[in-house]
């Protein structure tokens, strides 16, 4: 199993053997590593406080039930129990969290604990705090809850009938629905030579399941009325917007602190219910409280990725294989509470036509509640489901019309020369070269010898398939897209903050607003600062983690949605540029020269052409901070620069649902070759390659690491990771025993390659790229389809997760899925 990295044949930026000047673009050693490989990171669960109590949630065993009574008296009698919190108390002490959707979803009442009714197995009904984790768990078992079971609904389509309604206040299970209609789909249909119809496709529930579960240690300061939350929330800016009104306090009363976070992947964006419960407990009991989620709790009751059913997919196709667009009805199942999810009703539109030049698209989108775990953003959030649809369309249409899936992709891809490319709904794809990435990935996987490989596999009784996954990783949201969801929402644009200062002894200190979870923000920030200030990354001290008290954060601060390379580093660059200007001003004042005559090199401010006239950074820091008598009165420098990076966005046209919804589009094109044993359905990925294009790479090793990780998660989701429920609404895969994530032996050999298509819209020409668009899921589905189907015959791969038993089913009853597809040729 070897990994091959190829450099591009026709580089856009990097020439082979060329070394970029400076630190940007170099794989410098990661600053985070030294503490992490010694076990010296500080994760929230490592933080302890004197006399803190441990929280354990009492959770519903029913998918849907009325709460008749909650009796905590026996729990409170247990020695070492500090106190409890129930839903009734929560309803008095706090308000429901604000809802993003318009009605009916807007009328849902979502509290920190279940109030009056439980809506999924694992819904928290009470919390117990005790001296030890074990005692808290014991005490939770002594809480007596009387339930009145209600009928439940687990299927999204079924739920739309509203025969069983989860949220009485909303009166309907529909959270939000809307029709998106761009171009002229009816005309495209009339103009088509073939119309391919796919009755049903289903994107399954899974999640990236970060290895560190969620949690927090919450302290309440009675004197100031302020909570400090040591946690692992990955979007604290928005978390605070949710929590502060619910707790009936100003946003300044919530201080979020984190240093190291053990993976997030979006799953740690909606922790506000649990955190709010912990805030109420810390205040009620006047003691620090600590909650560490159990793995089983994370799987049953925190966040899943969203599940989406696509119905009546209709694709008009010209005789030469050019597709004119598509129409679809999408049903998004968000589980018991929508929380962040309504945004997912819009976010897919960032990639409306996928990688393709499709101009006529009609999507009828509905989000609906069911009695299952709530969902939340999960790596590839909402776009991944939609991109899977576009890739299934390509492969199914190609298969049914006898077209080559590779050539069909190339024919329909947006062309290199068309960038920046405006999609039918007004999004602007910034740069890229999809066809070239496809050629590279085919080269890596040895596409030339495809038939030989197929014959070899067939000689061993195996079915051979090869498939492509073409995806876009759109990054740097325009939050104005939330107004398409709900015009009342006052969110638009985006921002991120960084502060760079020069301190007394010449220390360069960087403070970020982001909340890193392994993406190497300390390292890449230091690269950018070093390049601008004329020092080395070792000279740059980047504070680890996030703290509201650092005052280096804004409303959208966080680490999510593939944006650090743009927003985070944009802020770092902005702050460092301004600091460099101030350092030159200060040096010029000292030398009695002009700032234009000063250069910053080798950790000194020098007069150009006269290296003898130099002030080391230490001198600059000391002069301004501690020895400033005699400086000119009009010298306006602080050497402590806070910069807010703000991408330039317009608010979208709400009527047409039209506008630029995101700033950058990284490309990932994957190829998968696999062999299926037709006797059992067992299949093995025998070759795998990924080509990534994320514009200018700040730190190639980190980029490649993200590609590896996103691929592993996608392969897990494609082959075995799935959240399935029994008929009573119990999750059948509630922990790593039943929910199998890839282990080292499960991973196929992986080859990687890259090109760099500089983004014209970002401060460093870079694009966010961490999510990866689920390319592995699309590639595996395509390869399975290629192995199983022939033109007009064989099964249709219609689900995103295809475990061996599922493939066996496809093989046994091809007619069951074949009937999902029809072709009308005119």
């Amino acid at each position, binding site marked *: 199993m070897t990994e091959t990295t190829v450099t591009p044949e026709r580089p856009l930026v990097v020439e082979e053997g060329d070394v970029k000047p400076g630190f940007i673009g170099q794989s410098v050693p990661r600053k985070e590593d030294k503490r992490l*490989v010694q076990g010296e990171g500080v994760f929230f669960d490592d933080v302890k406080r004197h006399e803190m109590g441990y929280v354990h949630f009492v959770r519903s065993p029913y998918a849907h039930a009325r709460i008749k009574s909650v009796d905590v008296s026996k729990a409170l009698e247990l020695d070492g129990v500090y106190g409890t919190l129930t839903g009734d108390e929560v309803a008095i002490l706090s308000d429901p969290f604000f809802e993003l959707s318009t009605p009916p979803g807007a009328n849902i009442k979502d509290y920190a604990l279940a109030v009056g009714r439980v809506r999924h197995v694992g819904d928290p009904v009470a919390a117990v705090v005790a001296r030890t984790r074990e005692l808290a768990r014991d005490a939770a078992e002594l809480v007596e809850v009387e339930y009145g079971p209600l009928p439940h609904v687990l299927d999204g389509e079924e739920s739309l009938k509203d025969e069983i309604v989860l949220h009485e206040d909303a009166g309907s299970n529909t959270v939000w629905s809307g029709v998106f209609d761009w171009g002229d789909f009816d005309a495209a249909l009339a103009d088509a030579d073939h119309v391919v119809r796919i009755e049903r496709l289903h994107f399954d529930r899974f999640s990236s399941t970060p290895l560190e579960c969620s949690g927090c240690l919450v302290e309440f300061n009675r004197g100031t009325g302020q909570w400090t939350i040591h946690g692992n929330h990955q979007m604290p800016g928005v978390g605070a917007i949710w929590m502060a009104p619910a707790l009936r306090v100003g946003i300044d009363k919530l201080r979020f602190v984190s240093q190291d976070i053990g993976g997030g992947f979006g799953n740690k964006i909606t922790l506000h219910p649990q955190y709010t419960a912990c805030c109420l407990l810390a205040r009620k009991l006047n003691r620090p409280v600590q909650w560490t989620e159990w793995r089983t709790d994370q799987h049953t009751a925190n966040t899943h990725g969203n599940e989406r059913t696509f119905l009546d997919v209709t694709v008009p196709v010209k005789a030469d294989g050019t597709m004119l667009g598509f129409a679809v009805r999408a049903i998004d199942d968000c589980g018991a509470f929508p929380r962040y999810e309504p945004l997912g009703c819009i976010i897919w539109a960032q990639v409306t036509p996928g990688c393709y030049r499709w101009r006529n698209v009609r999507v009828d989108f509905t989000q609906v509640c069911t009695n299952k775990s709530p969902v939340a953003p999960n790596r590839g959030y909402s776009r991944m489901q939609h991109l899977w649809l576009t890739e299934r369309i390509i492969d199914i249409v190609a298969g049914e019309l006898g077209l080559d899936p590779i050539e069909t992709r190339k024919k329909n891809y947006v062309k290199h020369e068309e960038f920046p490319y405006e999609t039918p709904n007004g999004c602007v794809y910034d740069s890229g070269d999809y066809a070239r990435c496809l050629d590279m990935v085919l080269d890596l996987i040895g596409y030339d010898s495809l038939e030989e490989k197929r014959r070899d596999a067939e000689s061993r009784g195996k079915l051979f398939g090869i498939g492509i996954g073409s995806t876009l990783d759109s990054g740097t949201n325009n939050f104005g897209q939330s107004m398409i969801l709900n015009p009342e929402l006052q969110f638009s644009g985006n921002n991120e903050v960084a502060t760079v200062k020069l301190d007394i002894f010449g220390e360069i200190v960087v403070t970020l607003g982001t909340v890193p979870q392994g993406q190497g923000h300390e390292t890449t920030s230091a690269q950018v600062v070093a390049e601008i200030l004329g020092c080395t990354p070792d000279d740059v001290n980047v504070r680890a983690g996030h703290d509201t008290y650092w005052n280096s954060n804004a409303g959208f601060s966080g680490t999510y949605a593939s944006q650090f390379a743009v927003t985070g580093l944009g802020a770092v660059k902005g702050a460092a540029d301004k600091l460099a200007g101030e350092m030159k001003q200060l040096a010029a004042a000292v030398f009695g020269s002009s700032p234009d005559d000063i250069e910053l090199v080798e950790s000194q401010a020098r007069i150009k052409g006269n290296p003898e006239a130099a002030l080391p950074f230490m001198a600059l820091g000391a002069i301004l901070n501690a020895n400033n008598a005699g400086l000119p009165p009009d010298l306006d420098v602080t050497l402590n620069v806070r910069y807010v990076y703000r991408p330039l966005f317009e608010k979208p046209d709400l009527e047409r649902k039209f506008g630029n919804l995101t700033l950058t589009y990284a490309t990932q094109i994957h190829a998968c070759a696999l062999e299926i044993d037709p006797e059992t359905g067992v299949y093995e990925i025998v070759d795998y390659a990924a080509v990534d294009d994320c514009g200018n790479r700040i730190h190639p090793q980190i980029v490649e690491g993200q590609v590896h990780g996103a691929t592993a998660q996608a392969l897990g989701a494609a082959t075995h990771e799935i959240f399935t429920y029994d008929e009573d609404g119990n999750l059948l895969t509630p922990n790593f025993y039943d929910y199998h994530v890839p282990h080292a032996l499960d991973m196929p050999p992986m080859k990687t390659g890259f090109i760099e298509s500089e983004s014209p819209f970002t401060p460093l020409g870079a694009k966010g790229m961490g999510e990866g668009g689920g390319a592995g899921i699309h590639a595996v589905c395509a390869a399975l389809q290629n192995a199983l189907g022939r033109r007009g015959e064989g099964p249709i791969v219609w689900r995103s997760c295809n475990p061996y038993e599922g493939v066996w089913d496809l093989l046994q009853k091809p007619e069951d899925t074949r009937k999902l597809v029809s072709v009308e040729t005119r």
Partner: protein
Amino acid sequence: MEAVSRKTITVDVNGEQYEREVDARRLLIHFIRDDLDLTGSHIGCDTGNCGACSVLLDGTLVKSCMMLAVQADGAKIETVEGLASEGELNGLQQAFSDHHALQCGYCTPGMLMSATALLRENKSPGEDEIRKGIQGNICRCTGYVNIVEAIKAAAE
């Protein structure tokens, strides 16, 4: 509810002796993390699958969430905190950094202990042997590609 029985145990962790009274039901990982405040070893699951809590107990690789602290009475325990000496990373730790074998770093302590056990048994493991050696450790960030490379490099 019955009173919880307690017992005094003695362990050697990374060459240091500790004597503590613990609940008989206390998991070894909670004892290490919460009672000894050695928080390098982590917890990622409830079921013994993830390996984030892996330590060496009398030279044998164990998942410290799968045994009780009282069962470790008298044992010599090695954790991630004992790998470096005086702030100098050992070869394996350095290889993990050089090869970008960690992202969030949460699985890393357990991964390093599994790799330590592997390399003591087998000085030059092949790729499959490395993958078998860390199959009890889940990493959600790296896809294992660079972890395997790092262990390979450390062996060399």
